[in-house]
């Protein structure tokens, strides 16, 4: 159906089509998941209580309507991630890492590799948050510490979009790049 695809692409280029996507935001506890979501969807910055049950929020980027799921990051809540990540929809997995917490980086690494395994072909974005604190890890350090160099450079056997971006939810630095990445990635992966 070449014609149909062409019309679709044209409408999409005009911005008439609304695409539905979903973001699954996971990460260890106190990584900044809820803060990230509340800033990109409502522009509200506050100290959130720990997320004990998943909560949903939605926002629109360009012509893509995103349903974002914010999942709790405590040890016993992590088993929920798999249920959300492996549902059959246009979802992008976002893994948030606290780039100051070097002690928990090993734990984050093992969890991240689990997520990378069971997320299949879905794109995964790793966000290093809290870049406003001086002693934070840079993007390169995060790639090294999380041991995802192969994924980021595309050297894995199965094609998979994986990237690391850093941001600060407090100063908002890096958030526009993340938004750009999400929209571009969605277009590449699901709209064609």
């Amino acid at each position: 159906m070449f014609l149909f695809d062409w019309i679709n692409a044209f409408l999409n280029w005009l911005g008439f089509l609304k695409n539905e996507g979903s973001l699954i935001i996971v990460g260890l506890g106190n990584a900044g998941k809820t803060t990230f979501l509340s800033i990109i969807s409502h522009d509200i910055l506050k100290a959130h209580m720990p997320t004990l049950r998943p909560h949903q929020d939605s926002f629109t980027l360009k012509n893509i309507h995103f349903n974002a799921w914010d999942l709790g990051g405590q040890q016993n809540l992590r088993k929920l991630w798999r249920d959300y990540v492996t549902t059959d929809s246009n979802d992008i997995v976002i893994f948030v890492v606290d780039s100051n917490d070097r002690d928990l980086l090993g734990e984050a690494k093992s969890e991240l590799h689990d997520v990378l395994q069971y997320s299949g072909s879905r794109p995964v974005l790793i966000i290093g948050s809290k870049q406003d604190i001086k002693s934070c890890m840079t993007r390169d350090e995060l790639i090294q510490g999380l041991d995802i160099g192969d994924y980021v450079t595309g050297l894995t056997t199965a094609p998979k979009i994986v990237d690391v971006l850093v941001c600060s939810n407090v100063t908002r630095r890096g958030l526009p790049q993340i938004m750009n990445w999400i929209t571009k990635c969605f277009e590449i992966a699901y709209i064609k």
Partner: protein
Amino acid sequence: MQGQKDEKVSQACIAYLEDLLKTEENKQCADCNTKAPRWASTNLGIFICMKCSGIHRSLGVHISKVRSVSLDKWTPELLENMKSMGNKKSNSYYEECLPPSFRKPDSNADAYTLEQFIRGKYERKEFVRREGGGGSNNGRSAGTGIHSLPRRGGGFSETTKRFEQNGSHNNNYNGRNEYNGGGRNEYGRNEYEGDMNNGRHNNRNEYNNNNNNGRNDNNHNNNGRNEYNRGDYGHSNNNSGNNNNHNNNNNNAVRKQNFNPNSLPMPVSLPSHIANPSSNVSKNTNNNRLLDEDIQWHEAPSSTSASNSKQLVDFDFNAPAQPPTQPKQSFIFDPLSDPNNNTFNNNNNNNNFNGFNNTTMPINNGMGMNNGGMMPMNNGMGMNNVGMMPTNNGMGMNNGMMPLNNGMGMNNGGMMPLNNNGMGMNGGMMPMNNGMGMNNGMGMNNSGMMPLNNACCPQKHGPPKYQPPYQQQQQYE
């Protein structure tokens, strides 16, 4: 295999933690005394409630590492830390210098008070009795090294006192709002807080500072209104000015955006560690929007209220008075509407006034309706007035305005002698005022604001002078 072993160790640790939670000292949250805390700060060695854990998490992992007692994995090292500290020991160190009159926030405290207290306690260490700040004392070293530290004799730090002010201000905050008389104190204090927080708590700062701002706006609006109306009705314009005051004050809550607390001059010289906190975070936090303005990606669903409020904000104080527009004929009576809709009421009121000047009675009736939209009780009053005095257009105006002036009972009474248009009118008005005992009470409060709003009362025989905001500030210092 390793995972199973870890799981068992973690469960044993949690069982021990449950025992720790049953001791008397750990039955309350270390910060707000809420019963049955379920979260713990592993490096501080304290048990905290869920509300406080959210704030502890926002401090950063270099100050407090929060874990859930039941939801997280525990290791023997972390457990050892918890065993060696506990709430009592930790508080004896972190609250050693707490003023005796200080009331710790309890479980009913609002988030702002709680956050200020916790940040002062752990981040700035205001209640720790020792010289110098910062340094690396995590929970463990703090527990052992307290008494070897040099003492600072007596007296509370500057920030401690300020925090007390903060607390009292918070008490005002809920009930106060528009009509609080203590304009001067608030002005100073609001600004003070804005600087102290350095914009870290955006919501509060904006709110406070906008109170000040709103006041200036009011002056501006009064000017415009009075100038426009002078030719028609002389001094009765003060009424209309007061109307605008009333409405704008209501709208204060809406006008939260786009205000930079740092743009106001600092009335009090702050200690350097408060004025310039060591973290580079707080300096940039006043940006409400994302840094990259070019990318219009953001269509947040909640942005509608923000755009409404932007229309209201008029920071250009030197702007000429806005010419009157045609009165809107789409009158919506909705007293139950949320405060964001006040923008509509406000516009209506401005237009209504013109309608009074230029048009006939039936429209005035309509005006009374709209004005009363904010105070449904007064609808009937406005209608009755117009009905009683069908011929006096000029008085009809005042009557129509009465519902608006409810907030300013004082002004209504004060204006009556000036309006020599007809004594019959005044007589007709008095019963109305009597009927509004509630509003009289409000008038008292407003009288406290009189000196602030120079447009209100003092200049009875001319349009009020406009005072730029910086001159007002000088008065208050």
